[in-house]
Every structure is written in structure tokens, then in C-alpha cells.
């Protein structure tokens, strides 16, 4: 015997089914849209930055003819002397070369406008070069000099020249000169090596990321040296030796909370304790690394604990069964197997620290520093803070530099994170 459903109900169900399926499509659609929104933002963000930053790989140079007299470099006895070189007006030599191209430029104002076309550091760079190659003295040289950042931006098409002359950084006269130089093939875009070999500078065309990259590397090194042993020891303690109870609970609550404390609070701690109480040097990668290690310690502890917990308990039991002590089982058998997981957690912690800037602003790593740091107590800055400094500058050229620095930083971080993901997958398969 079969139950009959009244046609009224089946009809209702059929009708409602359509509505229910529409709702289903709706939810699917919104879900997919959300994901695509996130992906679209990622593409726009990276695309926008790449679009603005890649041009900073090239720098405009101008070719000038210069002759360096003996007296610029040699002392009375005919020897190369740094002191004589120091007194020589190298900027003047470069400017002389430029004026030779435009003999019509007359009067103080016009000449100064012409001088502004080459980089303010061109003379200094030239001096360094001649000092290393004294055989170039006393002969006509054709040298490629860096142009100023304004010329560079104009040549790259980043300057809006349709606005009134007073609204832009280059005058009509200067534009005419640049066009003339370009027409006679004296302007050339070359690879911007100094971006990778120098530290910050007031002149965008000489500013580089080496100083910040070194600062970052030192800070991360200090952080690793401090954090890794501490994190591994705490993780072993919490997983193997801690007796369940109030103290252990309290430690765990503390670690979990520290992981969620805003990074800037660690900066305040560093300022109050390391700088003001212990009188450590401001802006030093040493202090920066210490602050970063406070910040990443909970992350790495949590990751290390997970890694230790993931080691099958049979390993420990076997070790204990064969007569190993608790400590031997932990250090000689479990820890080596947990090491890949610890490593993955460490990479994630390093990536987090490498991108962090807020706490470092608090301890003065935001200063303008022209020298590449050589020790951990030298004043320095780090990559993200360098990006912050450049993006606060008015010149369009610094905007370009900041974008390129971001590109390198983000690529590096993505590679690190991918390595962590791949490592984790690799070892998960092995277990």
C-alpha cells in the first residue's frame, strides 16, 4: 500500500523548489564574488605597484664631455691626493660640460636652471670614479652622468607638462633643453645600479635600498638568535615537562594573548624598557631585533608546539621504553623529527617580522640614514620603514622608488611564505 501525497502539496513543493534553487545560486554567486573580490584586489594592488615601480629600475643619464685637469687630483709632487680632490670643484667640472652643450644659456638664473638638469650628486660620483682611475686625467672624456630626478621623471613620462609652468618642477626652458639633448641622442636610460648599492639619500636619483636591506637582515638575525632557542625550549617545556595546573594554564593564556597584542605595543615596551631604562642606542638594528623577537616569540612558540605535538607519541614511548630519560627522548628523538615544523613556523615568524614597521618607528628606526650599517649598533632603518619614509616624500621619483622597494619586499615575502607552505606539505606527506 502506498501513501498518497495530495497534489496540493507536490504542487507547493515544486513551486518552492524553484525559489530554493534560486537562493542556492544566489549564495554560490555571492561566495564566488567575494573570493574574486579578494583576488581582484590582490591583482590591482600588485599591478598598480609594479606599474609605478618597475620604471625605477632604469635611470636617465646624460652624456657630457669633460676634461679633468691635473690640478684637480695631483698635489705639488704629482701624486694622487685625496685632499686636493676634496678641494676641487667637481660639480663645477660637470656643469662646465653641460654648459658647453648650451653656450646660449647666459645670466645667473638661466645657468642655474641648466645646472639643475644633472644630479646634485653627479660631481661626487665623478670624483670617486676619477680617484680610482687617475689615468683618465688631462684628456677629453665622454662621461654618462645621472640626470636630476625631475629630468628622469619627465623623460619617463611621469610629469604632467600640460599644466602651467609655475605648477611643475621644470620650466619651459628646461624642457626645451631636455628635448634638445634627447633629440641629439645624449640622453639614455640605463640600469639603476645605485638603487642596489647605496643607502638612502636626499636626492632620489642616488637613493638606494642597500642600507635598509642590511638593516633588515641584521634585525632579523638578532631576532632569530634570540627567539629560536627560547621558543624551542618553551615549546619543549610546555609539551613535555609542564605539569597540568594553574601555572601552565597561565603561561598558555599569556602566550595566546601576546600573539594578539598589537605590534605597536611592543614598540612602546621597547622604547620604555630598552631605550629609556637600559639606555640602549636609538635606531639600532640590535634593539629592533630585540623588539621583533618579543613580537614573534609567541608565533614561533605556538608553531613549535604544534610541530612537537605532531610527532607520533610512539617515538617517545619507544625511546622511553628502551631506557632513555625524558630529556633524552625529547631532545634526541622528538625534537629532530619536529624540526621541519619548527622551521616552517620560524619562516612564517621571520616573514612577519620582515614586514613589520610600526614597533620600529617607536625605537627611532625611522631616521634618515645615508650610510650602510656595518654593525648591529649602527643607526639603520629597515625595508618597510624605508618604504614608509620614501612614500612620505614629496618628489614623484621617491614614489617610484618606494614602489620598486615594495615589489622586492613583497616578492621576497611571497617566496618565503610559499617555501613555508611547500615545506609543510612535504613533511606532512612524510609523517
Amino acid at each position, binding site marked *: 500500500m502506498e501513501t498518497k501525497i495530495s497534489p496540493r502539496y507536490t504542487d507547493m513543493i515544486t513551486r518552492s523548489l524553484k525559489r*530554493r534553487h534560486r537562493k542556492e545560486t544566489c549564495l554560490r554567486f555571492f*561566495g564566488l564574488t567575494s573570493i574574486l573580490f579578494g583576488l581582484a584586489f590582490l591583482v590591482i594592488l600588485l599591478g598598480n605597484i609594479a606599474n609605478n615601480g618597475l620604471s625605477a629600475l632604469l635611470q636617465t643619464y646624460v652624456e657630457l664631455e669633460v676634461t679633468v685637469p691635473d690640478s684637480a687630483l695631483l698635489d705639488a709632487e704629482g701624486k694622487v691626493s685625496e685632499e686636493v680632490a676634496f678641494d676641487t670643484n667637481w660639480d663645477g667640472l660637470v656643469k662646465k660640460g653641460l654648459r658647453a652643450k648650451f653656450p646660449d644659456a647666459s645670466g645667473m638664473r638661466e645657468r642655474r636652471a641648466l645646472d639643475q638638469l644633472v644630479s646634485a650628486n653627479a660631481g661626487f660620483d665623478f670624483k670617486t670614479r676619477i680617484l680610482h682611475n687617475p689615468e683618465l686625467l688631462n684628456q677629453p672624456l665622454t662621461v654618462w652622468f645621472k640626470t636630476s630626478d625631475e629630468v628622469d621623471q619627465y623623460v619617463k613620462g611621469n610629469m604632467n607638462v600640460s599644466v602651467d609652468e609655475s605648477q611643475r618642477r621644470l620650466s619651459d626652458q628646461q624642457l626645451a633643453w631636455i628635448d634638445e639633448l634627447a633629440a641629439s641622442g645624449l640622453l639614455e636610460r640605463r640600469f639603476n645600479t645605485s638603487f642596489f648599492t647605496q643607502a638612502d639619500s636626499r636626492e632620489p636619483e642616488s637613493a638606494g635600498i642597500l642600507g635598509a636591506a642590511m638593516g633588515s637582515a641584521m634585525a632579523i638575525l638578532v631576532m632569530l638568535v634570540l627567539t629560536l632557542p627560547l621558543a624551542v625550549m618553551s615549546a619543549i617545556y610546555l609539551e613535555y615537562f609542564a605539569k597540568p595546573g594553574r601555572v601552565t594554564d597561565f*603561561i598558555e593564556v*599569556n602566550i595566546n594573548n601576546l600573539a594578539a597584542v*598589537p605590534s605597536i605595543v611592543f614598540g612602546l615596551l621597547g622604547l620604555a*624598557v630598552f631605550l629609556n631604562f637600559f639606555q640602549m642606542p636609538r635606531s639600532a638594528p640590535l634593539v629592533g631585533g630585540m623588539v621583533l623577537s618579543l613580537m614573534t616569540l609567541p608565533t614561533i612558540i605556538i608553531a613549535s608546539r604544534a610541530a612537537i605535538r605532531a610527532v607520533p607519541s610512539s617515538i617517545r614511548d619507544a625511546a622511553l621504553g628502551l631506557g632513555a630519560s625524558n630529556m633524552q627522548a625529547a631532545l634526541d628523538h622528538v625534537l629532530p623529527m619536529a624540526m621541519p615544523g619548527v622551521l616552517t613556523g620560524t619562516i612564517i615568524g621571520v616573514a612577519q617580522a620582515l614586514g613589520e*614597521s610600526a614597533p620600529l618607528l617607536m625605537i627611532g628606526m625611522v631616521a634618515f640614514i645615508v650610510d650602510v650599517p656595518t654593525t648591529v649598533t649602527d643607526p639603520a632603518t629597515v625595508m618597510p620603514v624605508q618604504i614608509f619614509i620614501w*612614500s612620505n616624500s614629496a618628489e614623484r621619483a621617491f614614489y617610484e622608488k618606494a614602489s620598486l622597494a615594495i615589489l622586492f619586499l613583497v616578492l621576497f615575502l611571497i617566496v618565503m611564505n610559499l617555501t613555508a607552505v611547500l615545506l609543510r606539505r612535504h613533511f606532512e606527506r612524510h609523517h
Partner: protein
Amino acid sequence: MRPRSLLRYYGQNAVIWTFIPAFFFLIVCAFLSSILLEQYFLGLIAEAYPDADTANRDLLFAQMENVALGVLSTEDGVLQSLATDYAEFGNTIQRARGWLVILLSLSLAGFAYLKAMPQFRARESVEKVLGGLFLSSATIAILITVAIVASLLLEALRFFDVYPLWDFLTGLHWSPNIAVHADQVGFSGSFGMIPVLGGTLLITLIAMAVSVPVGLLSAIYMSEFAHPKLRNFFKPTLEILAGIPTVVYGFFAALTAAPFFRSIGLSLGLDVSSESALAAGAVMGVMIIPFISSLSDDVIRAVPRSLRDAALGLGATRSEMVIKVLLPAAFPGLVGAFLLAISRAIGETMIVVMAVGTAANLTFNPLESVTTVTVQIVGLLTGDTVFDSPKTLSAFALGIMLFVMTLGLNVAALTLSRRIAEKYE
């Protein structure tokens, strides 16, 4: 007689005795001797310059230190001779300290050597020390928390000495810059935190309005609808967003998003500030999306399979299952995830520092410029600041507010997620 422990433990025991006590002795000595030296020379300075007050004496001391280091030269004969003494004293103490450490280390090494007899249980001894080391490194987490609370509280209390707590908590006016000139005209800066807090909440609200729907829907789609292959592509790609440094988001917010919102506003006839809360909040929202989606994903996965299967078995569509079964079951956990995200947004610094102004307007109009707690902390503490002025101290008062707020949110979130875990275990 056979030794009671493996031979390497005797060696490890010797290493521990040789280096660890000497290391701690060195740290304590360095700390104590620098304090003693400073106190002694501050006394000498007080004798040599009877008119100087405490601040002046500190200044003279700093000058003397620099003269002794050779960074600074001085015309002042008294200071010069003090500096010479200081350098000499410092050198003597350093040398003495070095010899003491070496002596201690060697004598303890000798002690360990004598102890290394077959009947000595070296392993137990080494393991005891290691265990102590492990325990003390685990307690560092507690130490850090204590240090945070203590340092923030100490500085904040100094601030509340000159500025009443109640006015700080309820004042409607924030303009710390007046206080810079306090030395001349008497302290008149105004530190009412309500507008700063209001700005923080406004930006957090905008960020949550962007990230909660997008993050939650992505998580639902990925865990319930997406093909596993698609999921394996989407998930890591979305996580790239989480790995991008916040300074990059700030850069984008300040230099791309803000002008973009401004030009849209202009075309609609609206006056959008170039440092609008909207731009910073929206970009911050995008930053938090992966955070919310991965936390929600965890929560949704924690809901037992049986609930899903029961709903689907009764003929519910997938979307009905999600809305009527999954989400209600996961609700407390989801709220916990959102609280964590809010705490993240409140503490986020770089985006707002770069994209938002420092003027504290008490407004809830997202098109206007506001300021946040973190922006103020950075603004008050970067650049050349006199450390003891109320202006810089107020940053620590804001810092402790930030710490308390985020701590409260974290504890609440933890309690909620623990509750859901217990419910389904």
C-alpha cells in the same frame, strides 16, 4: 668502576659550570657597575656644580660621558678632569670585571673537573639544569606581559599625575600639540580621548563592514561549495593578501585609494577629504579579509559532519544547510573570530598612519578625516621629543587603553571559541 652516566654528560656538565654562572655574573656586574659609576659621578658633579638642579646634573653627566668617549670636546676644565677620571674609572672597572669573570669561570671549570668521577650522576645534573632553563624560557611569556603592563602603566601613571584620568577618559577635545609650549605659558594641552577613540571605532566599523561579509562568504564558499582543486588554488592565493606587509596597504591607501575615493566623491558632488576614514577603513577591511576567512573556515570545519549530513539528508539544499544549520551552530565561534578581527583593526598602525590625518575630529562621517589611537601614539613618539613632557607620556596612556581594549577582545574571543569546542567534543 663504570661511570654512572654517558661520558658526554660529564663534558656537558663541565661546559655548563664553566660558562653559565660566569655569563650571568657578567650581566649582573655590568649592570651594577654602570649604576654605581653613574651614582658616584653624579655625586661628584653635584659637588663640583653646587647650583645645578637634577635635570642639569643629568645633562652635565651626559656631556661628561661624551667627552670621555671623545665625541665631544669641552672648554670647561672641571668637566674635562671629571671626564678623564670617568674614562679611567670605567676602564679599571671593566678590566677588573673581565679578570673576575675569567677567574670565576676557571675555578668553576676546575670544580666541575674534580666532580667528574665515575660515581657522579652527570646526566641527572645536566638534565636538571636544562629543565630549569626550559622552565625559565617558558616563563618569559609571562615576563613580557608583566613588562608591557608595568612599563605602560608606569608612564601612564606619570601622565595621570599631571592630567586627571577622568578628563582623559571623557574629554571631547584632543590637541596635544599645545602642550609643546607648556614650558612658557603653563600646561594647557587638552587630552580628551573620546574623539581619538571615535575615529578608531569609525575606521574599525568601516573595515569590518568590508571584511566580515567578504571574508565569511569566501570561507563558506571555499568549505562548502568550491571544488577541491579550486579551493587549493583560492586558499593560498587569498593568503598572499595576509602576507603583504601593512606598510604596503598603507602606501596603497594613501596614494591610490584615497585619491580614487576623492575623485569619485567629486564626480558625485561630495566633498571627500583626501585623508578620509573611508579610504583607510576600506583598505584595512581588505587586509583583514584573509584573517576572517581563515578563522571562519576553522570554525565552520569544527562543526560536526553529522549536523551537515542530517540537514542534507532531510532534503535541505546546500544553502539552506549553511544558513539554517551551519551558521547557527558556528555562531559563537564566528563571533569570536570577528572579535579577534576587531582587535586586529584597532591595533593596526601603518595603514592609518599613512592614510589618515592627525587632527582629531569627533565625527561619524566616513568622508571626513579622523584620527586613531595608533596614529596618535606614532605621532607623539616619533621625531625629537622631550621624554618627560605630558605630550609624550600621553602616548603611553593611549597605549595602555589600546592594550586593555585588545586584551578584552582577545579574552572574549578565546572564551567563545573554547565554548564551541567544548560543545562539540
